[in-house]
């Protein structure tokens, strides 16, 4: 993907996506993050990371409807988005460990992974911080006359940030090809969303004349369908959409958030894990449809596990940046 090269005509994706690939992606994200947690606990990873385990259906459902040259912007909880958009696990691990081989040469870390090869304009550690970027990418697309789209992943917490309403207004006025994907995982840090959100989130997008839809974020196919429609609309020049995806994060706000009884119950966590897991749900469906069998999926899991293990090992063995890198890349 290059920005100057106009994208070839890209109609709405036709036919059914490769659901096995989608399953594989979700599983990679899960296994990737299990290893991130492990690297944290073994004190190999510096700092903290925000795991998206439980939310894989949203990342994969959305990105399955995108082309390589479409843009995404992501959040502090961005590993899933990044992998779903095609990032290589070993370069991500390397970034998380602050190594030179990482996507950002170790300068960004977990919250700033960007991968311009795949249209990933970057995770963002400011809640709502990438809304302007995604909407500006939409403006750029419109000015350049391509049929790309820009997806802005945000959390429900970002509904509190005024900039969301500013950019939705302009996206609507100018009919920009932007899709706001809100991952409603019920919490912003340690506070319940219902304590911070007056009214209905969908109404907020609708008030700006933006088509808004609630989607079951645990159902990767539902997420895909809703996104594909929004994408098709955007590519036709019919402007922005807003998708509210209900989902859940299994772990704490970040890897260090272990004692979370004061803000949510183990029961609630268990319920989501056992009843609403996007990977299990997809697996049941794949098997029911005869698109995969249990043995094949076990085999796949083993294989992914080995690949991710190797990726993590690569990152652990990789060298840190040269010290002179501290002062490069300040100016372009």
């Amino acid at each position, binding site marked *: 993907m290059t920005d100057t090269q106009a994208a070839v005509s890209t109609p709405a994706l036709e036919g059914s996506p490769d659901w096995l690939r989608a399953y594989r992606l979700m599983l990679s994200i899960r296994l990737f993050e299990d290893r991130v947690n492990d690297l944290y606990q073994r004190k190999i990873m*510096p700092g*903290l990371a925000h795991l998206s385990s439980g939310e894989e259906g949203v990342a994969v459902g959305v990105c399955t409807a995108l082309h390589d040259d479409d843009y995404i912007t992501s959040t502090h909880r961005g590993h899933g988005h990044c992998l779903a958009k095609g990032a290589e696990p070993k370069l991500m691990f390397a970034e998380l460990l602050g190594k030179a081989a990482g996507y950002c040469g170790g300068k960004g*870390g977990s919250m*700033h992974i960007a991968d311009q090869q795949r249209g990933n304009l970057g995770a963002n550690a*400011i809640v709502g911080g990438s809304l302007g970027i995604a909407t500006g990418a939409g403006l750029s697309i419109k000015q350049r006359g391509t049929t790309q789209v820009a997806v802005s992943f945000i959390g429900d917490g970002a*509904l509190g940030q005024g900039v969301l309403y500013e950019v939705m207004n302009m996206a609507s006025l100018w009919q920009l090809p932007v899709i706001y994907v809100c991952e409603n995982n019920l919490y912003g840090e340690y506070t319940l969303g219902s304590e911070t959100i007056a009214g209905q989130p969908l109404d907020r997008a609708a008030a700006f004349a933006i088509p808004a839809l609630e989607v079951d974020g645990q159902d990767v196919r539902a997420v895909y369908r809703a996104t594909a429609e929004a994408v098709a609309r955007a590519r036709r020049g019919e402007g922005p959409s807003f998708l509210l995806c209900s989902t859940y994060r299994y772990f704490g706000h970040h890897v260090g958030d272990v004692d979370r009884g004061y803000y949510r119950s183990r029961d609630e966590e268990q319920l989501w894990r056992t009843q609403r897991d996007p990977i299990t749900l997809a697996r049941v469906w794949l098997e029911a449809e005869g698109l995969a069998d249990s043995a094949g999926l076990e085999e796949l899991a083993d294989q992914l596990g080995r690949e991710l293990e190797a990726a993590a090992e690569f990152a652990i063995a990789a060298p840190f*940046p040269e010290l002179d890198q*501290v*002062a490069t890349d300040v100016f372009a």
Partner: protein
Amino acid sequence: MSLPETEVEAVTEELTMAQAIRQAIAEEMRRDESVFVIGEDVAEAGTPFKVLSGLVEEFGTARVLDTPISEPGFTGMGVGAAMTGRRPVVDIMFGDFLGLAMDQIANQAAKVHYMSGGKLSVPLTIRTTMGATRRSAAQHSQSLHAWVSHIPGLKVVLPSTPYDAKGLMKSAIRDNSPVVFFEDKMNYQQRGQVPVAEYTLPLGVADIKRPGRDVSLIATSSMVLVALEVAQVLADEGIECEVVDPRTTVPLDRETLIESVRRTSRAVVVDEGHRSYGVGAELAAVVAEGAFYFLDAPVRRLGAMDVPIPFSPVLEDLTVPTAETLAETVRELCGGKTREGRA
């Protein structure tokens, strides 16, 4: 550390920085029902750094308010509440988020008193953090106290010890002007003696944390600890450092800074903001002007490198002033000689 002024204060207890700040706020909330806390995750969570743990249990959710993630909104509301009889303590979780609220802080809070010809006032305290090396990368590691120090109408506090933090926080809350209070997040677990009895410390009075005759180390916030460490090391080498802590950048106790440098004739300014156009520039300019005829060498400045803070530990550690870089700077400045040696 300044000694407590009255006998009563002589009874002290050991507190962490976080505990001292919490105590200060709790005491002021008990003393004055108009004081309340507002911000993200300040109630049950007690902030991510647990600085406010326990407050909501004592004072309830009417006085410890969890907000949506709306820095401009709740900061502006703090201004309005302050103008109408309350003394809000607004919590901006990371100093990096000040950018979101700068209009409310600089155009509203700072100017209301002046623009109204003194008729309205804004007794508001904004707590926020500063400090790098937590492996939090570029958007969670900044020390942006220069921004607010530049805006007339705001007072700015940079405590370096639990004792200072408690006494200055209580004064900040009681002050009738808006005060921005910067807490170095790497310092929360630092311990120190704090009087058991009630006390406050005035805003605008620098503190000589360690006297010395060869060179003045003018240091802010956690850099005071670095300076004290260096002073200890260099004492063995025969260089006597005076460690001067302005404690507040606004009001700035110019006299104490200048006098110290006039005595020692050398100065190094150490501040964790970016070096260029930072607080260190003002401190350096003030002493370079005020002690000009007494200086034996140029005033040196140490600050964070002029780069966004990188994530990788090997890089991040290079960006901030350390005991090593400071010691080296002082040694260079003193030309390997103490004042005595030169005399």
